[in-house]
């Protein structure tokens, strides 16, 4: 897998998979595939989950503030 880079023109390299000179293909495809899927899903679910949790906390806080301000408006300001 390490011989074709010397002869491949830039145009060939952009239309086919050409190994990098000195690179070694030793890792199993299964391990790489599983790692890629775990990392991708962990990133996505983490991003979505953290955002959703932050959104819920923020909405609770906004609700509390709005209620406090409504109370403050009807019963006068706190000293």
């Amino acid at each position, binding site marked *: *897998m*390490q011989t074709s880079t010397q002869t491949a*023109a*830039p*145009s060939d*390299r*952009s*239309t*086919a*998979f*050409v*190994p*990098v000179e*000195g*690179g*070694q*293909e030793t*890792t199993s*495809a*299964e391990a*790489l*595939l599983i*790692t*890629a*899927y775990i*990392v*991708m899903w962990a*990133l*996505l679910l983490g*991003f*979505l989950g953290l*955002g*959703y949790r*932050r*959104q819920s906390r*923020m*909405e609770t*806080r*906004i609700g*509390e*503030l*709005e209620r*406090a*301000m409504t109370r*403050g*408006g009807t019963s006068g*300001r*706190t*000293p």
Partner: protein
Amino acid sequence: MQSRKDLVFYGLLGLTLIAFAVLIGFVFLVAPEAQPQAGGLAQKIFYFHVPAAYAMYVSGAVCFGASALYLAGPSDARDAWAKSGAECAVAFGMLVLTSGPLWAKKAWGVYWTWDPRLTTLLLSVLIYAAVVVLRVFGGGGDAERRFAAALSVLGTVNLPIVHYSVKKWGGNHPTVITQGGGGLSHPDMKTALLLGFVAMTLLVALLLWSRARLALAESRLAALQEQAAAEGLEEAA
């Protein structure tokens, strides 16, 4: 109003999950394994890697549009979409930058090479990361928002360079779709890629919308805290 927004969120989330379930099923049960030069089984990373790059472009475009509009006339909504676009561009950029090297290890024999497309993509992700860091630690004042918007506009200019770098300068990264260099030798592989684009379109819409909603809630909370402090409701604020 709130429950309607939650309905949109859960509806979009449900559609996205269905689309990804179909995609995963198709990729692993129907789409054939690619030729060894393309990484064999590892080539199945491709059906998420390429759509993730497309989702990054979409996020960058949203960030660019909203930032340009913010510079023309500031508003909380424009700022929220600009911030959301930058955050999603970093998230999808990270997906591309983690899935790509794992596939490259099998197809090229190395995790990373300073190929024009890889280098320009890394630069783009770093620019969007700088925008996000600026927004998180720089405060929410108008000057910071404007600076972040200007940086986003400049950062998005790099995206066409990422896309055309492989055509212009060659390198190891194949021109997968237009030149058939990504191992798309079977019609089912093209269908799998199409499903990948559909699923990733739903996901990027879901993430952009939910992050913009979050940014708007942050602005609303900041305004309420200011108002509460001005009214003497320090305890509540």
